[in-house]
C-alpha cells in the first residue's frame, strides 16, 4: 500500500563550520554529483558564525549565477542549529545534507537519493574507510557504545552526508550536537533509516588527530543521548530506582550502626560510617526528588509530548470517495529551538 517515493526537488544544505575546505572546488564537486541525479536542485550554505573567506567564496559563486542561498549566522550556534536554519530556507521535498569538507565522492550522492525509495532517511557510511589501527579502535569503541546504549546499529555517525525526506526534518528538533545522532533520533520517531555505503573521498583519507577535549565532548554527547533515548519518558522510573537503592544502602548501614549501639554499646558518635550512611540517605532522597521533578515536567506537558507518531489516517468519507485526512498533530510542535536562541542572542 505504500506509494513509491518520487523525489521532485532537492535542497542541499551545507553547514559551514570551523572545519571546511575551499568551498569553490567543493561546490563544483557536489554540483557535478547533484546534476547527475537529474532533479532540480538548490544549494543552501549556512555559515555558522562569521566565516569571512567562506562568505567571499560563496558570494563569488552567487554572482556567477549559481543557485546558492547563503544563510549567515551571527555567532557559532553549532552544526545541528545550522542544519535547522538551512532547512527553514529550503523548498525541496528531499533534503541532502553535506559536510563543508571532502568526506565522500560527489558521484555517490545518487546512491543516497536512490535509497530513499525504501527508507525515510539514508545516511552515508564511508566504506572502505581509511585510517590507522588506533583510529579504527576509537571508532569501533564509540559506535559500539552508542549502539549498546541506544539499541541501534550504525557504523558511521560522523558522516555528514545524509538524504532525508522533507517530513523527517519537519519532525526532528535538533539542537546542540545532535546532528551526529540524527539517524538515532529519526529512528526513535519511527522513521526508517538506511545506511548506504559510499566511497570515501581521497581528501578525507588522512589521519586526524583528536584532542582530549574532543574525546570528552564525544563522551558527553553519548551521555546526553543515553538520557534522551532511555529516560525522558519515565524519569521517576530511572531516578526512582537509583534513589531508592542508594537510600536503602544508607538505611541498612544506619540500622547496622543502630543495632551495634543498642546491642553492643558501641558508641555511635565515634564512627565515620555514620557520616557515610547519612550521605547515602541524603543522596538517595535527592535523586528521588529529581525523579519527581522530572515526572512533574512530563505530566504537566503530557499534552504536547505525545509518545506516538501517526503515519496516516485512513478514512473514506461518504460524499467523495477519494480524499482522506492525513493528520499528524505531533509535527506542529511549534517553534524550533533555533529561532528562540537566535532571538535571545539579539536581545
Amino acid at each position: 500500500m505504500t506509494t513509491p517515493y518520487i523525489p521532485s526537488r532537492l535542497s542541499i544544505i551545507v553547514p559551514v563550520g570551523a572545519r571546511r575546505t575551499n568551498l569553490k572546488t567543493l561546490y563544483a564537486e557536489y554540483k557535478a554529483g547533484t546534476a547527475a541525479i537529474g532533479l532540480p536542485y538548490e544549494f543552501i550554505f549556512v555559515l555558522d558564525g562569521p566565516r569571512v573567506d567562506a562568505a567571499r567564496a560563496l558570494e563569488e559563486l552567487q554572482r556567477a549565477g549559481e543557485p546558492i542561498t547563503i544563510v549567515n549566522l551571527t555567532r557559532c550556534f553549532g552544526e545541528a542549529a545550522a542544519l535547522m536554519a538551512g532547512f527553514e530556507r529550503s523548498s525541496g521535498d528531499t533534503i541532502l545534507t553535506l559536510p563543508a569538507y571532502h568526506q565522500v565522492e560527489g558521484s555517490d550522492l545518487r546512491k543516497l537519493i536512490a535509497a530513499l525509495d525504501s527508507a525515510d532517511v539514508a545516511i552515508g557510511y564511508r566504506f572502505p574507510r581509511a585510517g590507522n589501527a588506533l583510529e579504527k579502535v576509537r571508532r569501533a569503541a564509540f559506535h559500539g557504545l552508542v549502539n549498546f546504549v541506544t539499541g541501534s546499529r550504525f557504523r558511521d555517525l560522523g558522516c555528514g552526508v545524509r538524504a532525508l525526506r522533507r517530513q523527517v526534518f519537519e519532525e526532528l528538533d535538533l539542537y546542540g550536537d545532535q546532528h551526529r545522532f540524527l539517524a538515532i533520533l529519526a529512528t526513535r520517531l519511527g522513521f526508517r533509516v538506511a545506511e548506504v555505503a559510499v566511497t570515501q573521498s581521497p581528501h578525507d583519507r588522512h589521519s586526524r588527530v583528536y584532542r582530549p577535549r574532543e574525546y570528552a565532548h564525544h563522551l558527553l554527547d553519548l551521555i546526553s543521548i543515553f538520557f534522551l533515548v532511555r529516560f525522558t519518558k519515565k524519569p521517576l522510573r530511572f531516578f526512582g530506582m537509583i534513589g531508592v537503592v542508594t537510600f536503602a544502602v544508607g538505611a541498612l548501614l544506619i540500622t547496622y550502626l543502630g543495632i551495634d549501639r543498642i546491642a553492643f554499646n558501641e558508641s555511635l558518635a565515634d564512627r565515620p560510617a555514620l557520616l557515610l550512611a547519612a550521605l547515602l540517605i541524603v543522596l538517595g532522597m535527592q535523586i528521588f526528588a529529581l525523579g519527581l521533578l522530572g515526572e512533574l515536567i512530563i505530566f504537566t506537558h503530557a499534552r504536547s509530548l505525545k509518545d506516538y507518531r501517526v503515519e496516516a489516517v485512513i478514512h473514506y468519507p461518504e460524499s467523495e470517495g477519494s480524499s482522506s485526512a492525513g493528520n499528524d498533530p505531533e509535527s506542529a510542535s511549534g517553534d524550533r529551538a533555533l529561532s528562540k536562541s537566535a532571538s535571545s542572542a539579539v536581545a
Partner: protein
Amino acid sequence: MGSAIVTTPAHTCVARAESSSNADSVRRHDRPALSIIVPLYNEQESVRPLYAAIVQAAGQLGRTFEMVFVDDGSTDATVDIVDEIARIDSRLRLIKFRRNYGQTPAMAAGIEYARGEILVTMDGDLQNDPADIGLLLERIEEGYDIVVGWRHNRQDKLISRKLPSRIANWLIGKVTGVPIRDNGCSLKAFRGDLIKQIPLYSEMHRFIPAMASIAGPRVAEIKVRHHARRYGKSKYGLSRIYKVLLDLMVIKTVATFASRPMRWFALLALPLFVLSCAAFVHSVLAVVGGADMSMPVAGSGIVFLASAMILLCSGALAELTYARGDIRDRDFLKLTQTVSGPGSDLP
C-alpha cells in the same frame, strides 16, 4: 491499489483545528453520539469478526456512531484488511502508527482522534463482547463520567493471570482510592470531553480510571462478558508487575501532589530537618557538658540540613514547573463540576 487514499501527515495547523480542542465546530457538524476505539496489533484474524460484532451491536443502539481503529504498527495484514473495510464503511477510520508504540499510546491516539460524545474503548482480540456497549452507555446516561467493565467470569488461567491481577487490582484500589475490581479490562466508556483532558502516557492504559481521578469523575463498574482468546497470543505476562508498581507510584504522587508540588518536597525534607536538629542538639549538649563535639554526628547534621534546603529549593522549582505547565486543576474541575443557583446561567 487504486486512487490516492493515504495522505501522509503534512500540514498540521489544519490537523490541530480538526482533531483536538475545537469541539464546538465538530459538534455543529457531524459529531457522532458514540465512538468505539479499538487498538489493534497484529490482529488479522480478529479484525473482521470484531468489525461485524461492533456494527451489529452498535446498530441496535439507535444512535450515530463511528469506529476508530488504531493500528499499533502491525506487521501482518491488519492494515490492509481494515483498509478494505473502511472503503465500504465511512464510519470506520484507521489511525496508523509509524511503528509499534504500545497500548497506552494507541489508546491515547484513539481518544484524541475520536469525535464522539461518548467514547468506548475495547480490546482488538475479541475478548470483550461489543454487545455489552449498550450496558455501558446506560450508566453514562445515568450521569456517570466513566464506566468500567468487570470481567466477572474471566476466562484465563488462575495462577498466572487471575491471581496476580486480583492482587494488583486490590493494590491499585487501595493506593489510588478508586476501588475498581478489574483495571485490566479494556472495555470502558468515557464522557468524551472528560477523557480527552486526561494526560495518558507511559503505560497508563491500565490506570485510566485512576489517572482520571485527578478530574474527580463519577465512576461506575458493571459486569461484562469475557471470552477466551480465540486468535493470536496473549501479550501480557507476570513480568509486568514491577512496572505496574512503579507506574502506580508515579500516578499516586502525580495525582495527589501535582497541584501542590511543594508538599512532596517538604515531606521529604521534614525528616532530614528533624535529624539535623537532633544532631545539633546532640552537639550543643556535648559542648555544654565539657566533652568534645563528635565529628560524625555534627557532620551528618550538616549534611541533613543542606539536603533539606536543596529539597525545598527543588520544591520551588517544581512549583514553577506546575505554574508554567499546560495541565492545571482548574481545567479538570470544569469538566465535572455541577452548579446550582444564579451562577449556573453563566457559560
